[in-house]
């Protein structure tokens, strides 16, 4: 055998032994994720944020045979226990995810065994309102991108876990933190800061994926002279601490070349006295030109919010027949208790309906403005839905097959808002008095002890038909849910809840078809992928990642 022959033989052997290695994750691949259903390339699965998998091996008929394949503990080294809110990425058999707060791991997606771990050194100045968490990564080329709780954006080599660049995006000592999974649009990495409880001034910023150089920054609270500034009090510096955090990944429409982002609550949260006016662009969705950061349009769900109704819900983009003609719409289930259909080309309000009990507004007028009935008072105002909202950052799902919009929901919850004193101090919480509520906070350990009556709040996965606005079905849970929803091409819906169950429902009827006990509260979105032709479904619960597949 000649040397040439030997080399050729080795190449042949290697090509059989090693899983096919694809090209780098180009932006073209991110635009056409449906062509590679075995992979999960971006936070919500697609840039339209459907959280829908084209995989269909697991079906309503066989889902009863689903069984646990592996578990990966997501408690980071030398870290206190923290809930896992991350959605993993899977690229060609390799899973990438984040252990709280910012430890990145690469795993064999079929077995859960680790290739590498990267742990950046974090500043002790980091301060976060609601957990030292991270919701996931983005990938472009061979590079992963992660925001950190101390305000850095880090590019990491996907092959060896080594940092490529690390930029300081913002100031952790003032309460700015990066907890969301970044969004890739073309050659840019887009991200924004959490910190709506610390009197930050929010922004959405884009960075060159190769170098980390900042390309543009759009302030979610306009400054003097900018459009929208008239919605803040004149002669006051309220806008400097006006909130407008960004902590859930946005969406992108390549045809319109617009990227869509939900903006957080105004600051201070629960005493609006320092900020009379509508307080743009808090509690809004903004549509930006991803090349320049220029604002194309905005729609504000909750003007002059006093109830912490962040609009940081995932904007779901869908193309559908709307009142007799094709229309590019955005679906948004909002923390304020209404779910919306907007025209995503223009921001035009098309429909807004309550999906829970709501008493702070008696509906939405024809222009899309809520008809407000309640305000916070010094004596206390009882408001439905509660401070955590009718839904929150938990991903909804849209199935192009069923045409239904699936919303994880907190039903019949309320808070009492009592207006209290508030004063801005750097790095301190800037909120007003914390509202009271009946539903306890989410914990990292086992599910809550639940001794509440249904009148004190319960949970549901709800399916709505955007065209008719009708509720199609409702899967009721005794406790609320912080879980995202995943729809599949086989008409299944996967979700979980605080009770520590992960379950599969019939996407057309809501009938429960399977459930497993994960022993911890689900506070993350499910996702699905395939390796060697076998479909897997993954969900984080408590401080662990659980991965299921059909029994073999």
């Amino acid at each position, binding site marked *: 055998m000649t040397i040439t022959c030997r080399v050729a033989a080795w190449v042949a052997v290697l090509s059989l032994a090693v899983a096919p290695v694809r090209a780098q994750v180009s932006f073209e691949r991110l635009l056409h994720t449906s062509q590679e259903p075995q992979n999960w390339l971006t936070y919500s699965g697609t840039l339209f944020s459907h959280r829908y998998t084209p995989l269909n091996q697991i079906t309503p008929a066989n889902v009863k045979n689903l069984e646990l394949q592996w578990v990966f503990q997501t408690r980071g080294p030398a870290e*206190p*226990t923290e809930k896992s809110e991350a959605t993993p990425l899977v690229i060609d058999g390799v899973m990438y995810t984040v252990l709280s707060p910012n430890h990145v791991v690469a795993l064999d997606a079929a077995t859960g065994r680790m290739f590498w771990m990267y742990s950046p050194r974090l500043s*002790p100045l*980091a*301060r*976060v*309102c*609601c957990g*030292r968490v991270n919701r996931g990564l983005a990938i472009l080329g061979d590079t992963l991108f992660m925001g950190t709780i101390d305000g850095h954006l880090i590019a990491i080599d996907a092959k060896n876990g080594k940092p490529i660049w690390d930029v300081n995006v913002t100031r952790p000592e003032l309460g700015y933190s990066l907890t969301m999974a970044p969004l890739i649009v073309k050659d840019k990495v887009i991200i924004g800061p959490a910190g709506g*409880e610390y009197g930050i001034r929010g922004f959405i910023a884009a960075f060159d994926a190769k170098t980390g150089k900042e390309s543009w920054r759009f302030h979610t609270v306009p400054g003097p002279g900018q459009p929208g500034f008239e919605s803040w009090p004149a002669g006051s510096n309220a806008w400097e601490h006006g909130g407008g955090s960004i902590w859930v990944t946005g969406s992108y429409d390549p045809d319109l070349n617009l990227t869509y982002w939900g903006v957080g609550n105004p600051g201070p949260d629960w005493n609006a006295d320092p900020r009379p006016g509508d307080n743009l662009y808090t509690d809004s969705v903004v549509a930006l030109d991803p090349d320049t950061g220029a604002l194309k349009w905005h729609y504000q769900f909750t003007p002059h919010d006093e109830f912490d109704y962040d609009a940081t819900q995932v904007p779901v983009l869908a193309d559908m027949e709307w009142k007799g003609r094709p229309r590019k719409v955005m679906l948004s289930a909002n923390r304020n208790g209404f779910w919306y259909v907007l025209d995503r080309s223009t921001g035009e309000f098309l429909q807004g309906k309550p999906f829970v009990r709501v008493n702070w507004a008696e509906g939405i007028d024809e222009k899309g403005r809520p008809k407000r009935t309640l305000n916070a008072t010094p004596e206390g105002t009882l408001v439905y839905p509660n401070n955590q909202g009718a839904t929150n950052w938990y991903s909804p799902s849209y199935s192009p097959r069923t045409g239904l919009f699936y919303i994880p929901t907190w039903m019949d919850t309320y808070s009492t808002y009592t207006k*209290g*004193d*508030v004063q801005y*101090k750097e*790095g*301190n*919480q800037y*909120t*007003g*008095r*914390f509202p*009271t*509520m009946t539903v*306890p*906070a989410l*914990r*990292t*350990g086992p*599910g809550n*002890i*639940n*001794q*509440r*009556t249904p009148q*004190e709040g319960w949970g549901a996965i709800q399916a709505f038909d955007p065209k008719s606005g009708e509720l199609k079905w409702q899967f*009721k*849970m*005794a*406790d609320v849910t912080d879980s995202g929803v995943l729809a599949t091409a086989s008409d299944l819906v996967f979700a979980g*809840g605080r*009770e*520590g*169950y992960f379950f599969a429902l019939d996407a057309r009827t809501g009938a429960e078809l399977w459930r497993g006990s994960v022993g911890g509260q689900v506070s993350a979105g499910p996702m699905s992928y395939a390796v060697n032709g076998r479909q897997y479904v993954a969900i984080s619960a408590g401080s662990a990642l659980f991965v299921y597949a059909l029994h073999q």
Partner: protein
Amino acid sequence: MKRCLLSIAIQVLLLPWTALLAAQDHSYTQADVENGARLYQSSCAGCHGPNGDMVPGIELQRGRFRHATGDTDIIRIIQSGIPGTTMPPSSFTDAQAGTIVAFLRSGVPTTDGGTRIVRGDASKGRAIFEGKGRCGTCHRVDGVGPRVAPDLSDIGAIRPARELEQKLVDPNALVRPANRFIEIVMKDGTKVTGHLLNQDTFSIKLLDSRERLLSLAKRDLREYTYVKDSPMPSYRDALTAGELGDLVTYLVSLKGERP
């Protein structure tokens, strides 16, 4: 006038220290508690939650801390934060931090408008608990008594005196979720009543009237009803004010010390 000014000056000088000293000897005025509650709600509740139990491993109002060993420690941590954790430093004065401690500690018998409540006699209260009040027929203390009603072994550590007093005269005023009863009718007509321990979408866990830990699948139940009112009788007319004071003092003395 001079004396008056001197007096005011002394009061002003003493002011920042009063709450701190109060915190150190565990004696707080109602005003301290109320001021501390306000500061707590505006600055602490965001992370620690309205009940002080949102951070794992810490239950502020039950005195369960990770780092602090005493009130002085708590004041130091409130002011300096804990490096490497999410607990930030603050600009609170000693007095302000002291009022927060006062609020956190308000489960102990406290003062009312600056005047101490007339406290009763704990040993007399215990006699009422075991005798005239018949409390021990339902409640358990330090391993003695039935288990279906709330175990009161640490009630003095987790409830303020005013709340215990209110509970004795008006049991239905506040039935906490943790003390709820549930009535269940099985599909075969069997009735089960007990203390609701936990529930989820598919099951109910309870301690029934025979002190059995039961886990029932909801699909096996015909119906279940949350009992709205407390099964406890009111002692408004059954006990004198003095006897109520004795009983409350006894209950407050139950701190759940480790056996």
